[in-house]
């Protein structure tokens, strides 16, 4: 792509499909203003998708959401520009989000989700066109073979709540590796390494292809970015690119700022006053069992780092608990490493960022685990009891439970915050560390007022 400051754009694109696969950067000129504006518009769509997913919206709701987001942000008065805007904004954000593993991961999942729902929203002609553009590794199941496995296919259909198959149902046979999400959800019959994919599930196959192509492309873009583009464009594009991702995603709470340090002796008190339920539950369980499994240690450990617990204090804190269960020696040998690791003192030496709500909600705690989002992962009864312990009044509990039923977990947490602090939280809760710092702010101002 070429970027020019004010002239009109010279379009030279051969992409006609309404759903581009973004295989290669188009050769067209883009005004610098559009470069940024288009990217911001697309970012709004991706952020909207991210919010929708973290609220646990169902596929049908997501489809509607994506449709609305796309119409609201990605239209263009000049209809011939629409496809260009789509392509340009994608490639700009590719530059923005190619630069670290975390950014790539986020962009990859949001773009993949966007592609999925746009594919589903398309007409059957659009779908066929997209399928033809990919070189899909599948073959149609012959009618003789279909009869052989029909019972099994029906069994799968029933298990996912679909009607019995008709005799003319179309199935594709693909290596199971190509449809991981259908495997993960047990939504296909698999036999001897092949998955039997129904026509309506083809989206999964297409999405997997899209994802794998984009994933590879992002690595390449990153190489190009670090080797040439960043330097060449240091006066023009680089500042825009670098500003774009921070302008929208909010702080990552990897460095405690506002409240300086927290010492071990304060932890009990602030856990009661200012920890969100997910962290308070972990904290209480740790005090009770003197142990937490890996997922819990990560979620709580990184949160405490964000809160301002220094490495030395963190080691002392975890050791005091764990040594009661496994002994001090075993703690030093087996657990201290991962705590230093979280603080970037071991291994890759990355300073890890505390988990966001979105990440916590997406976790899948298993037997013996206490991490995850209580609003999502607790049973009704346990959640009510936990809220009661936090001092949430019965009316507010109903409000929280109502939001939980609608799978608005972050809103449920926000309501809890408001009930506990007896004050508004308009921005909503997006991050456990944000919950903490908002809580501290309120408590401090109350203290000041009292003094």
């Amino acid at each position, binding site marked *: 792509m070429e970027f020019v400051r004010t002239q009109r754009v010279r379009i030279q694109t051969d992409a006609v499909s309404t759903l581009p696969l973004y295989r290669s950067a188009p050769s067209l000129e883009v005004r610098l203003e559009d470069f940024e504006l288009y990217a911001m518009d697309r970012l709004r769509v991706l952020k909207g998708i991210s919010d929708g997913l973290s609220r646990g919206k169902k596929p049908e709701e997501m489809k509607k959401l994506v449709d609305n987001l796309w119409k609201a942000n990605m239209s263009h008065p000049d209809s011939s520009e629409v496809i260009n805007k789509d392509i340009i904004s994608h490639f700009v954000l590719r530059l923005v989000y190619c630069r670290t593993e975390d950014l790539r991961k986020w962009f990859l999942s949001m773009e993949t989700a966007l592609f999925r729902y746009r594919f589903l929203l398309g007409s059957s002609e659009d779908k066929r066109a997209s399928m033809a553009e990919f070189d899909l590794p599948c073959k149609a199941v012959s009618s003789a073979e279909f009869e052989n496995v029909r019972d099994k296919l029906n069994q799968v259909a029933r298990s996912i709540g679909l009607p019995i198959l008709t005799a003319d149902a179309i199935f594709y046979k693909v290596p199971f590796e190509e449809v991981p999400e259908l495997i993960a959800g047990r939504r296909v019959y698999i036999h001897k*390494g092949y998955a039997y994919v129904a026509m309506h599930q083809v989206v999964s196959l297409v999405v997997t292809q899209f994802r794998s192509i984009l994933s590879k492309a992002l690595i390449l873009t990153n190489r190009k970015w670090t080797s040439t583009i960043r330097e060449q464009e240091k006066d023009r594009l680089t500042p825009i690119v670098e500003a774009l991702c921070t302008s929208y995603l909010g702080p990552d709470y990897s460095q405690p700022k506002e409240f300086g340090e927290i010492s071990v002796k304060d932890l009990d008190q602030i856990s009661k006053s200012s920890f969100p339920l997910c962290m308070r539950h972990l904290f209480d369980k740790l005090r009770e069992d003197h142990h937490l499994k890996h997922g819990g240690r990560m979620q709580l450990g990184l949160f405490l780092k964000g809160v301002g617990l220094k490495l030395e204090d963190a080691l002392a804190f975890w050791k005091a608990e764990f040594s009661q269960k496994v002994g001090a020696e075993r703690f030093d040998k087996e657990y201290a490493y991962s705590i230093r690791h979280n603080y970037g003192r071991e291994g890759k030496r990355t300073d890890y960022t505390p988990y966001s709500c979105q990440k916590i909600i997406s976790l899948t*705690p298993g037997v013996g685990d206490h991490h995850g989002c209580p609003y999502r992962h607790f049973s009704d009864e346990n959640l009510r009891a936990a809220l009661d312990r936090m001092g949430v009044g019965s009316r507010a509990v109903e409000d929280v439970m109502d939001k939980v039923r609608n799978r608005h977990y972050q809103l449920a947490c926000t309501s809890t915050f408001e009930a506990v602090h007896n004050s508004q939280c308009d921005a909503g809760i997006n991050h456990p560390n944000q919950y903490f710092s908002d809580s501290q702010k309120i408590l401090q101002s109350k203290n000041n007022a009292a003094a």
Partner: protein
Amino acid sequence: MTIEEAENGRDDMLIDGPDRANSIPDGFNANYLKVYYGRLFPHFDIFKWMCYGNDGKHPACDKSYFGRREFSFTLDNDIYLRFQSFNSASELESSIREKCPFKIDIGPVYSVDPAKRHAYAQGGDNVFAPVERELVFDIDITDYDDVRYCCSGADVCLECWPLMTVAIKVIDTALRDDFGFNHILWVYSGRRGVHCWVCDGKARRLTNEQRGAIADYFRVYKGNENSNKKVSLTGPLHPFLARSYTEVLMAFFEGNLLSSQNILSTEERYEKILSMIPDESVTSELRGKWQGRSSNSKEDINVHRWGQLKHMLQSGKQKGQGLRVHEIVFTFTYPRLDMEVSKHMNHLLKAPFCVHPKTGRVCIPIDPENCEEFDPTAVPTLSELLQELNTGGIGADVDDEWDKTSLGKSVRFFRSSFLQPLLKSCKEEMETSYNAKLQQTKNNLSW
């Protein structure tokens, strides 16, 4: 990465038994281990396995393959050496003999020699990444603590071990019939569980996402003690679950576990099961039948009560109650995998034929076809093996000393049932891909 399995505290080491004056004292120590690595450990078999045919003379062999595999050693004093790599069988063997690791873990094959990863990292481009790894599973009996009453924690006995047998049957069948894998190795973890290595080329090249998908395919447990139910089934069962249920789980639950774990014998225990049934009219009726009196029939009380419960749920006035029976059986018997181990290529797993420092037992392969015959309490221990060596006479064939000990059976099984078929298919695969490549170059030249 935490190594939760590495329980190397040797403080509660067993001291020799009462009247075994002349025998090797029981237990485990570095001196025994030295002898074991020197005379019994099948170094060469591990090497052949990890080469996957790349140590041959075929032009398609990748000579760097074995050297890019990570081994990691846990030493006597809990020093943990990661990213060890070796270029030959003899290098591997002499390092093991010299360092005498209490535990050997096997990691992935990396893009470059893991021992030289820092040199490659200088280039800036992150070229150091795992490229191949067996698909592995780790099943640990401690994860069943809420459904077994005979033992808890790291203890196992013959009452609860069958849970592992069931896990092997369910997972092994699915790996072969559903996913089409052929080269599968099951290994006793030395104490409280089993490990599974799926070694087909296709399995070794799976991405993390694909590994995660397979792990999820096997997952029926949602939630934990913070949510009510362990297993939540919604409609008719997927063919995989239906097959597991009818072919393995149901028979095991009714014919074995129900009585051996006394699942319905006391109020506390049956209440746990009743809490899994949401319909209160059913639970209160059953409670009425069971409370305060022991059954007077000759039948086992657990079997009797289970029959009543099943009858009530299945004759059901309400639809869908039959599914509760499934849920109960799945909760008590379905395999509980440590998902994280399977999901990522760079997870380490203990090598077969290691000796568990706490039990002294060797991590020997388990034959999935006859897994019900496997008895964890009869697995050879380090001291038993040394005893056998001592009494076995001197001057026998030096290479195959294991053959005259009780380890012989296991090494022979490893070779004949796993290693040989594996290497045969590695060779064929190599041949096919080489010929395809040749054909391609030929075609390119022909025009």
